[in-house]
């Protein structure tokens, strides 16, 4: 009799259902659209396609960096090294491409990403260092490395192909947005349809259960941090493509927003619950908000205050834990 019910409801293998219903992602998208409509009412030109595209381009950099943060948070960790990983990636991109060309630079950036992620992952899984501390220390170290490597003043510029990826468009759609969409789709599939995704949720929910089910937690954790660093350096390269150059402190303003986007997107900071569809909306919400506040001519102080209050508001909306006492 149970199986009949299951058969009557064959939808549960479909991505759409598990992504949109399970974690209340719909709520986040409703929030996003509402904020967008409000922004359009305040400033009618925000309804223009051009503006939407511009907004998505800006959000794409955060969105890509937040892919890594989503994976890490789902695994029960936190990556505080995203900003400087991104920055180092960007600096390597421009500096290496001066002498060795864009392709070599691209390879060097990915190699750096893998190396940084592996280092984080090994420290966290094999040395048992808490993720916050490990990535915090890594962040400090990367900051110095970036300064020393660039001598305080990064040289070089974006190769043309990267410039195209950052600023060009195909059929009227910005390439940066297309890349974001492709990566988003890939990560959603990764989470929902692959064994890696299942294992990731398992480790994030309960490491003992995961271990006793034959999952190699440590390898998985290392993979997760490698992926996180890779998405960070990709975001760094996209920023290089967008600005045409690299500078120090490029990703500074993105670290906390990656966490905010993940949380606004409904992923539990405790791990094991959530997904990327929400995070993407979270990234867009953050920039929508910023643009509204800019239009309203609110100064930095006001922006920061409202930014914090909105995160709190969203948390109250759906981030509450269960009461200890029933």
């Amino acid at each position, binding site marked *: 009799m149970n199986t009949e019910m299951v058969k009557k409801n064959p939808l549960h293998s479909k991505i759409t259902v598990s992504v949109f219903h399970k974690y209340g992602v719909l709520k986040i998208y409703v929030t996003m659209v509402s904020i967008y409509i409000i922004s359009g009412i305040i400033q009618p030109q925000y309804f223009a396609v051009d503006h939407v595209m511009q907004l998505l381009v800006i959000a794409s950099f955060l969105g890509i960096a937040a892919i890594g943060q989503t994976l890490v948070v789902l695994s029960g960790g936190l990556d505080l090294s995203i900003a400087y990983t991104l920055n180092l990636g960007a600096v390597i991109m421009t500096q290496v491409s001066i002498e060795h060309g864009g392709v070599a630079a691209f390879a060097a950036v990915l190699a750096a990403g893998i190396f940084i992620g592996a280092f984080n992952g090994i420290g966290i899984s094999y040395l048992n260092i808490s993720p916050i501390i490990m990535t915090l*220390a890594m962040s400090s170290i990367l900051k110095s490395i970036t300064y020393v490597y660039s001598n305080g003043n990064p040289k070089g510029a974006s190769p043309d192909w990267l410039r195209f990826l950052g600023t060009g468009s195909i059929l009227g759609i910005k390439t940066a947005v297309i890349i974001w969409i492709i990566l988003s789709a890939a990560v959603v599939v990764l989470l929902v349809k692959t064994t890696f995704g299942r294992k990731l949720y398992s480790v994030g929910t309960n490491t003992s259960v995961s271990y006793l089910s034959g999952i190699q937690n440590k390898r998985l954790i290392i993979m997760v941090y490698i992926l996180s660093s890779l998405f960070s350096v990709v975001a760094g390269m996209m920023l290089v493509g967008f600005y045409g150059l690299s500078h120090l402190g490029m990703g500074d303003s993105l670290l906390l927003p990656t966490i905010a986007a993940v949380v606004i997107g409904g992923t539990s900071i405790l791990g094991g619950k959530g997904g990327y569809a929400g995070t993407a909306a979270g990234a867009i919400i953050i920039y929508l908000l910023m643009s509204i506040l800019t239009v309203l001519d609110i100064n*930095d102080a006001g922006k*920061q*205050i409202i930014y914090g209050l909105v995160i709190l508001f969203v948390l109250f909306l759906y981030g509450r834990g269960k009461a200890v006492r029933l």
Partner: protein
Amino acid sequence: MNNQALLFRRNKEAVLAFGILLLILVLFALNQNDFFTRYGPQSIFNQVITLSIASLAQTLTVLTKGIDLSIGSMIGLTNSIAATYMEPISQKAGSQAAGILLTVIIVLAAGCLAGFINGAIIVYGRLQPIIVTLATASVYGGIALYIRPTPGGMVPYQYTEILTGRIFDILPASAVVLAVFIFLVWFPLRRSSLGQSLYAIGGNEYSAFVSGINIDRTKLWAYTLSGLFSACAGLLLTAQTASGDPLGSSLFTLNSIAAVVLGGTSLAGGKGGYMGAVAGASILSLVLGLLIFWGVPSFYQNAVQGVILLLALSVGLLPKIKIKSLQRTG
């Protein structure tokens, strides 16, 4: 097992931190010409005091298995309030001393309020501390920026002198402050039921609850005190820099976490204490001074801090790894 050995085993991270600190102090002695004069200790304590106090704020929340990411912002906020209003208040009050006292009270109250708000949202909103304090960090930082849009402000000379100078021309004032916080704040706290409750909640919240500990009230206290001590750190920072900077103190958040962990307090809660954090905070602060002595470019500062943190943790974890890999759990 005898008591000393047990004490050592349980606190080996803290012992290690003090070992590193000792090494750094020896290096200081070798490098700083006036180390053995009355200026030596004064400068040492002035370098470590602010982060040491900020670490007390962090210790309390970390013991309950929480974290406070708004400490930097609260320091920035209180620093901005102090640097902006100390002069005007003094003029209104008609006396420098009354003005300073009044400002200090206002600043401490503001810190308490900010911390209480953190605690109330965490406890009654049933939200994760890490996210709540991340959000309130933004709010408090915004308020600081509103009060002091640009770094600056005026701080009476007397105020600076009280907190950074020497008492009877020999005893560094910041050493006295640190001693007060250790002996008159931390030790009594550790021995109070509140202190015991902090450890119990961090160790096992459900156990603490069924043992009759008021979880909500204890957490509220932890975050409120965290705000209060952040305000203390803000006041000390005001004295040291003689100005206010709304955003300049954001590093205190992560450094206070690093200091706490370096001192052997586990982010998993319920284990550790403030003494280790003082050592951790001192290491992180003094190593910068050491690099300056050696003429190392400031580029390297962050890397050195990061490497020390990782090395200290790895050494502390080595025996555990052996056991872990034997049990093959995880």
